[in-house]
């Protein structure tokens, strides 16, 4: 009921701003650039390797319509701490395909996108609708978005296991030019989930005599979250820019999170761009999370998923990009080659490393690990 009331309020907001769009006189905006990107991504950390390609192609038609298609693959090889302590290492492949269309009319851009993601035990379908409007001499852009997702959760080695979950996202954002050297972006998003939100493979542990035993996790069937972010960009007195991002998050499971990110972009010569980034993330645990429950069925909802625990992470990132105009080429204008490396340090406050044996139950060392995220991509503009 709370969710329904909330949704009604949001729809009113959407209606109000939808009416606003119609009443504003419009002039000109632009569609996304015509480009193709070929990305190779690699994640390594905590016993998990994930790598694969992502190909994005975008082309406009008659300056009013832009169509795009994305093909993305995750090849997963997992021997994470959850897997090695309660299950067996596994490999799997996830393929995600999406198509989108953007329609530009005066200063209004409308976007539709459909995404289909499949792996051997999980299928997700989602549709996204977005609308954005430039006004106030193009100094302000207001955007609204709605997404609906349908997940089907399965389980390896149990073909009869099949559960559903539905997701709805509402987004609202404003970008504002502040001065000739600075701009700001404010965004808010609420997400509501309903259905089977568990991970079917994960277990909680509870005290059993002098040791511990496991039972399956049990999550609530609904979750609603709000995230609010503010981002600013500033053009420095020399040709370089700095970015600051602050984000607050809260949900009905009791998780609160803060994200702070600072970035710096520095060009070198006519062809090179270098990026530096620092990111700090911190969250509190879900109300029903515990590393060690006192007994079996200790409460109605049970979780020992480390993503729901209290932890922090620090990221340091570096990127380099080389761009070259393609003068004299008939069909292509420019290409870029990009490389990014992010190193992330995860530090858990109440998730213990059960691989360590010979320690009193509940006194195992706290878990921590490092991860590397590499992105290499080639882009061509036409």
């Amino acid at each position, binding site marked *: 009921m709370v969710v329904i009331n909330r949704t009604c309020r949001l729809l009113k907001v959407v209606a109000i701003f939808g009416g606003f769009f119609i009443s504003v006189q419009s002039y000109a905006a632009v569609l996304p650039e015509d480009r193709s990107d070929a990305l190779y991504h690699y994640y390594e950390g905590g016993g998990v390797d994930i790598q694969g390609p992502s190909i994005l192609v975008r082309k406009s038609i008659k300056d009013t319509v832009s169509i795009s298609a994305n093909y993305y693959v995750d090849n997963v090889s997992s021997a994470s701490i959850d897997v090695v302590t309660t299950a067996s290492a596994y490999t799997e492949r996830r393929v995600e395909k999406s198509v989108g269309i953007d329609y530009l009319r005066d200063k209004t851009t409308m976007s539709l996108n459909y995404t289909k993601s499949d792996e051997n035990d999980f299928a997700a379908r989602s549709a*996204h609708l977005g609308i954005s409007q430039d006004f106030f001499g193009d100094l302000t852009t207001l955007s609204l978005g709605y997404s609906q997702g349908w997940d089907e959760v399965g389980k390896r080695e149990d073909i009869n296991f099949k559960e559903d979950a539905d997701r709805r996202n509402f987004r609202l954002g404003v970008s504002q030019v502040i001065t000739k050297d600075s701009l700001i972006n404010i965004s808010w998003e609420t997400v509501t989930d309903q259905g089977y939100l568990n991970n079917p493979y994960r277990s909680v542990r509870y005290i059993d005599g002098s040791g511990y035993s496991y039972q399956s996790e049990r999550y609530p069937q609904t979750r609603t979250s709000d995230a609010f972010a503010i981002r600013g960009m500033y053009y420095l007195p020399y040709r370089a820019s700095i970015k600051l991002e602050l984000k607050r998050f809260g949900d009905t499971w009791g998780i609160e999170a803060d994200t702070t990110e600072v970035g710096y972009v520095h*060009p070198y010569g006519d062809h090179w761009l270098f990026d530096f980034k620092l990111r700090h993330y911190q969250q509190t645990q879900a109300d029903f999370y515990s590393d060690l429950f006192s007994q079996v069925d200790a409460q109605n909802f049970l979780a020992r998923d480390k993503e729901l625990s209290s932890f922090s992470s620090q990221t340091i990132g570096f990127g380099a990009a080389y761009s070259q105009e393609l003068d004299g080429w008939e069909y292509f204008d420019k290409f870029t080659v990009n490389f990014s490396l992010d190193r992330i340090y995860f530090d858990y406050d109440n998730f213990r490393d059960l691989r360590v044996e010979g320690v009193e139950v509940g006194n195992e060392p706290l878990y921590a690990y490092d991860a590397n995220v590499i992105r290499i991509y080639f882009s061509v503009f036409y």
Partner: protein
Amino acid sequence: MKNQARSSFRVLLVLIGLVMSGCSSLKPWVKPYERQNLADPIMAFSRAQVSDNYLHHVHQAREGSRGAEGSAGGGCGCN
């Protein structure tokens, strides 16, 4: 935190309201010929959607937080 998030949303609505109400009396204070720095690619919040979407996915799969990343995400598949 829920109250904080709601307060943040109200602040956002107030800001939007101020911007909207200001449109009738204020004139755009940055002229088109003054926007060369803003148009520089180094001032883009996102220079490559395909790359940023991937990084959002990396974060979403490992953090309890989600949303307000600045771009639409796809299915999670975070099992």
